[in-house]
């Protein structure tokens, strides 16, 4: 039985040389690393943009709802039902509503804006209507990515006052989520006049 000599030549070679394998591996690693880095960066960008969008959406919507109630409030209450107005809690007194949605004289509803008692990243808007009012009760989550909310109370001439003396309320809301390079934050503020109280 003859054993064919296996010699290295270009024609009819079987397999790769060590050098070819090493070069191919190096190229493969480089290309893979480049592709993976693109993928990772792209994914990171998606997460970052997603948190930015989410934070921005929450800030806009939350602030809009808060300022809407401030405009319709008769006063800022010192406290109601265990909630006390402060730099981070807002208790508003609003006129009650009849069945047609019109103002009901002599009846007051309350709206509270406060952080959740167990999770301070959740901002809640709680509507506590009078038993005679047709305003629906509500306990709405405004955002689940709250970073901070600040209320400052002013009188009609712009001087800072205690909540019960306020005719204007400044609201600053900051939302955001994520950690490290994919974290994002959105903030918005508004100074709103109570239209149903002193000018």
């Amino acid at each position: 039985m003859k054993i064919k000599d296996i010699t290295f030549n270009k024609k009819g070679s079987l397999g790769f040389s060590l050098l070819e394998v090493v070069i191919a591996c190096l190229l493969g690693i480089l290309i893979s690393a480049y592709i993976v880095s693109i993928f990772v960066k792209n994914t990171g960008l998606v997460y970052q943009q997603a948190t930015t969008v989410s934070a921005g959406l929450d800030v806009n919507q939350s602030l809009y709802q808060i300022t809407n109630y401030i405009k319709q409030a008769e006063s800022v209450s010192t406290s109601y039902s265990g909630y006390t107005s402060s730099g981070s809690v807002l208790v508003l007194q609003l006129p009650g509503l009849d069945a047609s949605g019109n103002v009901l004289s002599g009846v007051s509803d309350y709206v509270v804006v406060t952080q959740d008692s167990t999770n301070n990243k959740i901002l809640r808007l709680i509507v506590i209507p009078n038993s005679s009012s047709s305003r629906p009760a509500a306990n709405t989550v405004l955002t689940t990515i709250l970073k901070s909310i600040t209320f400052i109370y002013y009188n009609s001439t712009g001087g800072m006052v205690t909540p019960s003396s306020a005719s204007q309320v400044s609201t600053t809301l900051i939302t955001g989520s994520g950690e490290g390079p994919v974290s994002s934050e959105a903030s918005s503020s508004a100074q709103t006049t109570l239209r149903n109280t002193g000018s």
Partner: protein
Amino acid sequence: MKFLDNKGQILPITIFLVGLILANSLVMVGQATTFFFNSSNNIYSDEAENIAEAGVDKALASLDKNPGGYLGETNTSFGAGVFSVNVTNINSQTQQLTVTGYVPSATSPKAKKIITIDVSKGVGASFYYGMQIGNGGLTMNNNSILNGSIYSNGNIYGDDGVTINGDVWVAGGTQPTADQQSDCTDPNCQDYIFGTNVSGNNILDVAQSFKPSVSSVLNKVSLKLRKIGTPPDETVKILGDSSGKPNKNNVLATGTLSASLVTNTYGFIDVSFSTSPNLTANTTYWIMIATSGDANNYWAWSNDTSQGYVNGSPAWSSNWSAKYPVWTPITGDLGFQTYMGGVITSVSFSSSNGGSVITGNVHAHTITNATINGSAYYQIITNSTVSGTSYPGSADPPPTSMPISDANISSWKSQAANGGITSGNVSFNGTNGTLGPGEIQGNLSLSNGATVTVKSPLWITGNLTLSNSSILQLDSSSGAASGIIIVDGTTSLQNGVTLEGDGTNGSFLVLVSTYNSEQNNVIAINCGNSSSTQVMYAPYGIINVSNNGNVKELTGWEIVLNNNVTLTYDTGLASLFFSSGPSGSFALVKGTYQIK
């Protein structure tokens, strides 16, 4: 071909990775698009709401101009959208405005907001503080409680156990008499019209110069004015002098002339400033009123054609703040009074460990024996505890004007007199009845549980006496408006009496005393034990509230709260509305504003 025989996995791997990246990108674009549309919707909503607010302002102005004829309007262009106004009559005094704002148009709106609010013709007044006190100051006796804030132009003194759940301001004291003044006597009195075009001249800014006799702070000025139509609040400035003209580059103080305090007949109207400027004796300064001008709503300043004031003269300009303002002299002297300060005021308690406490902030020149949970703004402090921040060297707060002017009271008296005059004393002994609107030229007394319904305004030229659980209540036809009882003599509210509104949220019965205690130290309004009153106003009088009294707001030249009195401020008092009145204009009825 040989290359087609090549085998490998790179292509599907590449396609897979590219697909992932593409998907991520699409998600990102989608979210960005969502954010864009959401933000756009929020902007449109805000725009629509602001357009509706503009519609409310337009409707008010139209009602004032044409009270019976304005029925609303449709698709009026404003900014990026349009508004429509619908006017509904609620009663003879009150109408409801329903204003809808659309962006960009009513036919294809991207956003729509509806504002409803009631408007009524009358006079508004703002009682911003639980107690507002004149130069006579405040005394709070043992265990009296104030749930609200205080603004006093005089000293505040408290006994042991006093609690003030609010802020305290004690203004720098004002001298009791005017330092400089000018007034006219007939036949030398003339209207000086400004705030409009007069004979082809836009007379918008008018000023009167003066020279103080002492070097001190200027605490307030009073201007003799009346209004034609319904001009808005105007800005008043104290300016230095430059070659005999107001110096626009030397504004020493700025204040506001409240249009609601001015009526269509002349009266001296107080103007307070945000800061009290230091003036030098025998130096010329200017009091200037700056207006924006309106053909139908403007002002008249009382002009002394005999030019009796020798330390100054008046002038007018079309634009005081122009690059080169032109000031034209006016023949005569405009009616004014200046009041200097320099009186040291304080808030003090009987002892530092007597249990008295102020839970809010304190602003006063001198603070003594006080326990303050908030911050303190002062120049001198003694034996006091401040839990918040201390601000030594703070300027004294400026004095504040009373929320109802003498001109307002005169207007209500005229309206009362037009309602009918009753000559002689009137009394109800255990019986019920109705009074007003009208004038009683005599005394009014209620006793033994009498209940009298009052239609506002009611003017009593003599004394008012209520005793033994009597009740004065405002008639229900007032709705959300408040009512007035004016008493020229003294008022005695004895045991268990009640003064109350008509039961509607925001409706109060306000007791106004014109009695002058400054001259004889006699109490203007005396509230007996356990009386329940709402709002008492005595700009020249002493209000004395006896043991266990319960009130909502007090404004007086001097106020004394006796043992165990509780005053709880009602925030609705920040925007009282009195229906009708000869110089009333349409105003928004607070508490009826809604966004839908």
